[in-house]
């Protein structure tokens, strides 16, 4: 819904992950490039790891070493993010002990 004096656009912050902004919205990137999202809500990357800058692509998620089917190593968890070419990593993803590895992921698109 467009921003108006009666109904300003809402911006939602979470404990981790992207900033949510009601769309449509224009975002000016750090090099001056203008990006436009016409979606009802845009998710703006804050971890600076996204490959679809400036929009979130879920790269903020904590990375874990998967349990291999024929693994000879015990299951290990690591908080090490995937290496990228970008040196700047300002936000560490939220660490949580509740995380467990499971295989129930879907490969389909929604």
């Amino acid at each position, binding site marked *: 819904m467009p921003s108006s004096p009666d109904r300003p656009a809402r911006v939602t912050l979470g404990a981790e992950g992207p900033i949510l902004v009601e769309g449509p919205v224009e975002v000016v990137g750090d090099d001056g490039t203008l990006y436009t999202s016409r979606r009802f809500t845009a998710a703006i990357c804050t971890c600076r790891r996204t490959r679809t800058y400036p929009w979130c692509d879920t790269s903020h998620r904590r990375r874990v070493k998967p349990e291999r089917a024929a693994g000879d190593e015990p299951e290990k968890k690591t908080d090490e993010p995937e290496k990228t070419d970008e040196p700047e990593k300002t936000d560490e993803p939220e660490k949580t002990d509740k995380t467990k590895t499971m295989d129930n992921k*879907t490969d389909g698109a929604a």
Partner: protein
Amino acid sequence: MPAYREPRRRSPPLPAPRGPLSDAVIDALRTGADHPAPAVGDADPFGDDLQLALYILYELHYQGFEGVDDEHEWSPGLLALRRSLEEPFLAALRAGAGTDGDVESALSGLLVEPIGDDGHSVSHFLQDHGELWHLREYAALRSLYHLKEADPHAWVIPRLYGRAKAAMVAVEFDEFGAGREADIHARLYADLMTDLSLETAYGHYLDAAPADVLATVNLMSLFGLHRSLRGALVGHFAAVEVTSSPGSRRLAAALKRVGAGPAAQRFYDEHVEADAVHEQVVRRDVIGGLLADEPDLESDIAFGIEATGLLEDRLAARLLAAWRSNSTALRGQPG
């Protein structure tokens, strides 16, 4: 690109039966009789016969079949049979899901990203090893859902209210093209299929789809069509949205690598970005809203998440077993 041809302009022919249950359903639809009463007995709840029989009965609520009276959607005999098929399916899902009833714990396993391929992931396999024929098979099989993408989830809308409803409708609006026909996700999928030289007619690949594919679509219809399973539908929807974005990036990479056209890549590129938004909205407002309104549904939401994982794992095992032995994952001759 050639002019767009609507996949749903015509209804598909009835599929070939895979056993006594599906045979009885097909026969009833062909002859117009409303008294199919085969005993479900100990039919495998995840097997070809039961899943196809259920799939055909659910399709009456979406697109129907060529030469079949639309009124059969509400034939009492067929509805009673559907019920007798749903019960063992639902029981098997509940037995296999093994949920502890906690939504946060059910979601937490999905909210991390494996480093590298764990050997069970279709999208990792396709990204790293996928050849054009793998991607064509994958797209053909997933078309059973994607040509009606987001339709099964629309059933839940009248069962929700307040925050959960507003958020669910916003996400569905996006799935249905945000008011623009050309952006309907089902249409983007048809364009992807065209890029891969697949037949886009609705239902064309039904005969080629193994039970494990049918079950993933039947799950959505089962949860969508029963108000009593509205929590499970929301959980299922969240599981798909949470996992879709990174999976879509791998599939877009796979399509790029094998030289698929721009429409094929666009479908998954769109889902990387869209589903990163949808995930946030579904977790925060659809699940959050529903839990605030109906806290008793928490274990159902968790069940929907777990049941989705169960069926997706079964499907992944089936696809990867076929492809790793260099054989087709399609039933019969690839269409």
